[in-house]
């Protein structure tokens, strides 16, 4: 593994006082520079809490977290400021001279194929366009760690496929470490080097994905990994709840 860029030791997070059951329970995690990691888990498993901690939105109260300084987030909803044109949203908070910042923002928008909408108001964008603007806003910061919080969940199926390959291309071009939070097993297998499964605040699986890129659903081995992950998540192949069936 490349030099670690993120290291968590015994990370624990409780929401209701010191005696409450932890949402994250003594979590250990190391992510290498440039590594693409997907984090799976059912709702309530602590995925979002972990991501918020890594983003710096929630404080580290128990345990340690070594995080890179340059981090960027793409949220599930685009969270663009509606009163700023798209390129100003991308440029938000960037230091430097105005013209240089604008050029960087426009370059990032070209990378996500949204340059033609640079001057548009965010509320006039489609869901996919808005999410690409969010991606540009994260990329323009040249992060060492890119946090993706279910960024494709609200998109229609076709847009989602295009966004997934766009993210794969951008990752290969820029090589940030990525933590993709998702509940879509196939998406995790299409994109990640490593798939983690979070359950009850602990990592219950850490699965290396050795499939060749670009990934294909039809590739040998894909299905086997998918079934393994689904089993860990407690769902059988047909989508039935394995725990309940047992």
């Amino acid at each position, binding site marked *: 593994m490349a030099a670690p860029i993120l290291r968590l030791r015994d990370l624990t997070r409780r929401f209701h006082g010191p005696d409450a059951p932890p949402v994250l329970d003594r979590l250990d995690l190391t992510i290498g520079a440039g590594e693409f990691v997907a984090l799976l888990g059912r709702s309530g498993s602590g995925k979002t809490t972990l991501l918020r901690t890594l983003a710096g939105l929630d404080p580290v109260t128990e345990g340690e977290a070594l995080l890179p300084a340059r981090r960027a987030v793409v949220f599930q909803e685009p969270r663009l400021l509606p009163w*700023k044109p798209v390129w100003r949203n991308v440029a938000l908070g960037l230091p430097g001279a105005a013209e240089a910042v604008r050029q960087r923002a426009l370059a990032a928008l070209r990378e996500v194929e949204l340059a033609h909408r640079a001057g548009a108001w965010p509320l006039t964008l489609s869901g996919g366009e808005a999410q690409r603007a969010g991606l540009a806003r994260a990329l323009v910061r040249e992060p060492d760690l890119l946090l993706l919080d279910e960024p494709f969940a609200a998109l229609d199926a076709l847009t989602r496929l295009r966004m997934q390959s766009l993210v794969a291309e951008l990752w290969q071009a820029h090589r940030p470490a990525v933590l993709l939070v998702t509940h879509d097993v196939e998406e995790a297998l299409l994109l990640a080097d490593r798939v983690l499964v979070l359950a009850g605040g602990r990592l219950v699986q850490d699965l290396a994905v050795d499939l060749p890129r670009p990934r294909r659903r039809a590739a040998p081995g894909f299905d086997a990994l998918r079934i393994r992950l689904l089993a860990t998540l407690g769902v059988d192949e047909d989508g039935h709840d394995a725990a309940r069936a047992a």
Partner: protein
Amino acid sequence: MSGQSLGASLPLRRAPSRPDLGALRLDRARRFVVPVLLILLWQAGAEAGLFSIRLLAPPSAILAAAWQLILSGELLHHLLVSLRRVAIGLAIALGAGVSLGLVAGLSRLGEDALDATLQMLRALPFLALVPLLILWLGIGEATKIALVALGATFPIYLTLFGGIRSVDPKLLEAGRVFGLDRAALIRHVVLPAALPQALVGLRYALGTAWLSLVVGEQINATAGIGYLVMDAREFLRTDIILVGLLVYALLGLGADQLVRVIERRALAWRPSLVGEG
């Protein structure tokens, strides 16, 4: 696409999607049918002697009176006096309302210190303060301006405070993630988010300002539209009284239009305005 051509297209593009102009004009014209009919009836009634023209001057007399007042320069003089009162009063209200709104909106301490007091004061009908204001400030300009300022401050304060407090926390979070400090968050996220509500407040404030003006100008005024009206009452000149009312109405409408223009420019990003041209 080159950076150059992008730069050129950055100023917002507006896609005018106007319906057929002819049909629109007809549609607008139709709305004036009833008012015009009423005015014609009013005139006809006066000429037929259905009511005393001493108690209600006919439209023709009102127009004639307005024309005379314009020619003699009296109307302009009184209008300027009234406008000055509103302008100064509103300026004070804006200063006070915006400062109070910012302090209470942006800090819990400010809210605790100010909000309860201001809410209590707001519950008081401010026009009931006239006797006190007269005792404190006399019957001159100060009372009239104070009345305008008092009435207009509360809507500005309330809507700005409410607007600041209803900022989407998700946007604040995004701002924080992307490295905005507190000052930048306020500038780029909080204030723009509060602006739509604050502008509604401004429109309310203008409305109350005219109302306060009307009341204020009935207190021993020696100039202003209100004086013109009160003076005309002494001589039973209902035509001049109605000219005064007309001017008040036009001023109110004009102020409203002004805020609409501001809104259209400042809130161009809103979905209802985007694409409207």
